[in-house]
């Protein structure tokens, strides 16, 4: 039950883009069409899940025993960047089909703040290994959800007359702000209503 609560929390209540305002770069950059939004979302979910595990291990098995917790951010960036590169190589070698779908997005998220964000958050919230993994995957799914919603909004917006000054990114920011307002409706009461 705790995992389900964690799952819902990171998808809706603590949504990475609309509540925490992390990962805004891909939110605007890769949301022009839904196809690439889905690809990017899957890549982020994948990397967030793995990065959650690895950074948890690095923190608890390396930094804590050596009494160096202040190296957290630095070592996490190092580990995540290498990890993503490594995963990219393996995918390219073993699964060309998956590489076609995710590969081009992987280099974009090597040092994405959303990925670093979930790693830091797992530590500060004091999650165990399994909780970290669930939080990572859920945060990725929440990211994907918002990215796909945004891409659909932008696809429809392309067909409508928008004032020249608002065309493109400005109107996307305004839509994003309105979406964030809507997501404010999700708070702790969502959990109590759903799970009792």
């Amino acid at each position, binding site marked *: 039950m705790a995992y389900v609560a964690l799952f819902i929390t990171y998808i809706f209540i603590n949504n990475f883009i609309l509540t925490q305002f992390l990962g805004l770069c891909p939110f605007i950059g890769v949301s022009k069409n839904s196809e690439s939004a889905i690809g990017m979302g899957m890549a982020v979910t994948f990397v967030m899940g793995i990065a959650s595990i690895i950074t948890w291990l690095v923190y608890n098995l*390396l930094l804590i025993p050596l009494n*160096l917790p*202040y190296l957290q951010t630095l*070592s996490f960036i190092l580990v995540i960047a*290498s990890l993503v590169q490594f995963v990219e190589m*393996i995918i390219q070698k073993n699964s060309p089909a998956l590489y076609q779908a995710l590969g081009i997005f992987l280099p974009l998220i090597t040092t994405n703040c959303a990925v670093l964000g979930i790693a830091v958050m797992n530590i500060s919230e004091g999650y165990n290994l399994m909780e970290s993994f669930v939080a990572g995957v859920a945060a990725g799914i929440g990211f994907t959800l918002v990215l796909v919603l945004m891409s659909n909004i932008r696809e429809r917006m392309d067909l409508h007359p928008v004032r020249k000054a608002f065309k493109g990114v400005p109107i996307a920011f305004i839509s994003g702000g309105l979406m964030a307002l809507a997501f404010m409706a999700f708070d702790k009461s969502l959990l109590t209503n759903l799970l009792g």
Partner: protein
Amino acid sequence: MNILFAFLIIAALGLLLGMGLAVAAKKFAVKKDEKAEEILAILPGANCGACGYPGCSGYADALSSGKAQNGLCSPGGAKTTSLVAKILGVAAEATEERMVAFVHCRGNHELTKRDYQYEGIEECSAAHMLFQGESSCKYGCLHLGSCMRVCPTQAIHRDDKGNVTVDPEACIGCRKCTLVCPTKVIRMIPARGSHAIACNSHDKGAVVRKICEVGCIACKICEKKFPDSGCTVTDFLSEIDYSKPMTQIAEAAEACPTKCIVEAR
């Protein structure tokens, strides 16, 4: 002392990860197709999609694996085809003829009557939804320039009277304008063609005469008096058959009462 320790740990971690990546890069190296890379360097890089593949890299992959036919790249033309053929080690096949877009209309607000005055969005598709445009002629150019905005090489221009023309030198034949045009007044003609019919109207001659000063009235002068002009009138519109010799086309253009046979270049 403490800071030195932290420094060493991070350095060691970095070294370890770096070496791990170096080993992985060797171990998981994927052999890239050299031919495809070479071909990609030759292709124009316009990513226009005229070849039917997703961008130039898609076409380069398909070419190197033998799935695609050489010579589909219209922006590159014959030069690219022969260079690609050299890499692929096959003789260059006779390429398809270079086609350029042509706006088959010279009507504008002064020469063509209007049913109403359109003041909506500057987009041809929007104007076309409203009684197929403001002009009384429902076949002609809508003058709102949707084609200009999709043209990857800015080859389409509009003068102050609203007449839209394609620069045949700059046109790469990607056909994007023909797809976006709601009246299909932009069609492809061979680049070698000296003349073209600047009208797209299938209205009867009397109707065209009433609403437009430069439309084809299907008088058949070009077809009957100049049989070697290549012009034939079908469904109240003269059309040029570019596979014919077209020796008399200049005289036909001169004789056309509404002057709607125009020079294409």
